[in-house]
Each structure stands twice: as structure tokens, then as C-alpha cells.
């Protein structure tokens, strides 16, 4: 059973950030993500469904951006308790 915590979806976070996909991909690599840029884009657009771990890496990549502009992790994680 997967549950998503309250907060923005990956797609909404991406839109509100104003980032380009190449920029998100670099941020994703920074937090130890390993998927290619096109695959990442497909996850954000909802064309592919990431597992919890992958979802949370993308959420963290987006939230690192929001931290830089003074916002506190607005993008939702999924089943965060179970990832630790």
C-alpha cells in the first residue's frame, strides 16, 4: 500500500519551480538519482509511476530548490516513514 503525504505533486512542484527539466535532472543526480533525463521527465509528467524511493528522490530534488527560495519542503513525499 502506497500513500502520499500532504503537499504538492511532482508535476505541480515542477511547474511552480519554473525549473527546466535539464536543471531538475542535475538536481536529481545531486541527490544520488540515477535515472536518465527522459525517464525523469516521464515520472514527473505521470507517464511512468516511480517507486517510493524514486519518487522521494525526485521530491527531494525539487524541495532542495524550494529550500533555496525559503520554502519548507512543499513537494509531497510518499510513504516517507517506510523509506527509513
Amino acid at each position: 500500500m502506497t500513500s502520499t503525504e500532504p503537499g504538492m505533486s511532482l508535476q505541480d512542484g515542477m511547474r511552480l519551480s519554473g525549473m527546466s527539466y535539464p536543471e531538475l535532472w542535475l538536481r536529481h543526480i545531486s541527490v544520488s538519482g540515477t535515472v536518465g533525463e527522459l525517464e525523469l521527465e516521464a515520472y514527473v509528467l505521470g507517464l511512468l509511476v516511480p517507486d517510493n524511493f524514486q519518487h522521494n528522490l525526485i521530491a527531494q530534488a525539487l524541495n532542495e530548490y524550494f529550500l533555496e527560495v525559503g520554502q519548507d519542503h512543499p513537494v509531497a513525499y510518499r510513504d516517507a516513514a517506510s523509506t527509513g
Partner: protein
Amino acid sequence: MAVNSQLQWARLVRAVSDPEAAADSDALLRQAVELSRDVAPDAVGCSVTALDGDRFSTPVYSGQLALDLDRAQYQAGDGPCMAAAREHRFHNFDAATDVDRFPGFAEAAVERGVRSSISLPLPLGSPGRSAAINLYGSSRYAFDAERPRAVADLLARCVATLMSRPARLATPDDQPVAGLEAARHRAWLIAEAEDVLMADRSLDRPAAMGLLIRRSRAENRSIFEIAREVVDNGAGEAAL
């Protein structure tokens, strides 16, 4: 998103992302145009227009409707897909307002219940050869929202990569991706912190990453600051 669509998207983006992947490019191209159904609810057809020299053709299409509409443009001598391939730029078509711009195509589109289309140029990286991907919709403005545009753009890049192989395989002249080295340095820091947590807490890597994420959230701090502290000072109680 249907499971079958997800599997097809997964196969497509992974094959496109891995230049070494042994894959049937023609089959993947056919699959890609079928995936146009996920671009927008009112998407009813998709095709690829290729321009070699001064000759237009449609090497791949999702169904008869898309093929007919491409051919109607070739017959009329103009249309959004031809313009996109020729001019290397995006073309948007609305059957209600663009009759004067592309009369032959507009008539053929309306006859078949198509009210809008978009054509995106495909960067093939090959002189003398260009192409465009065309999406046909049964409603006006079928592709005008942000998500349809984003999905169409992703689909276009997948198709362009497939069509340009092997010409686009990496060469020694390729420029490195700006910022990639810095990103990898930061990833090494995260990996080091994960190693510390894995050794200290007998965790696997995803669980160690989960700890870093949880602490980043709890303290409203960058995960890189947390990772640096873990690497410098050990796991500590605060990492829990």
C-alpha cells in the same frame, strides 16, 4: 495512466536513453506514435513527416486518419506539418481560425472531425534531412494546456533520438553537460553519508537515504548540509 501505457513509455524512454540498447527502432517509432494517445484526451492521431531534400513523406503514423491528413497537406502543397519540418519551428493549427493559412489541410481536417493540431520540429542533427511530429485533435485547443505540450515535447525528443540513430551517438566532440561534474560531486557526498549510516545502523542504501531525507525535512535544511555533518561527525543521535 493504463498499465499498458506505462510499460510502453518505460520501454521507449529507456531505449532512447541508452544508445547501446539493442532495440528495434522502427518498432519503437510505431510505439511512440501510438503513445500520442497520452498527450491529451482528444488526441486522435499522430504522424511523423520527414523531409529529404524537397520530398515529404510519412514514415510512421498511428492510423489512417493521420496518414490521410499528412497526405492532404502534401497534395495541397502546404500545411502545419510541412511548415514545421521545413522551418524547424513549432506550428499550431486551429481549424476554425486557420482556414486561410492552410485551406487544403483545413478542409481535409474538418471532413475527418479534426479541429486542431500541433506540429513539432524534430532535431535530427543531420544536414539536408528534417522532420516533424504531428498530433491531431478532435477538439479546438486540444493541445494548448501545459501538460499536453510537455508530453508532446517529450515524445518529440524520443522520436528525434530514434530517427537520428546512429548519427547522434556520442562523439569525442560532444560537449559535457554543464553542471554535471558538480552534481556528481554532491552525489558522492550523499553516498558517503549513506555509507556512514549503513555501517552505523545496519541499513540498506534506500533506508539510509530515507534517514537523510527525514532529517532534511525535520530541520528544514538542505540534505547536503545534513550529509556533510554525517560524514564529518558520524551518524550521531540527530540522524535518527
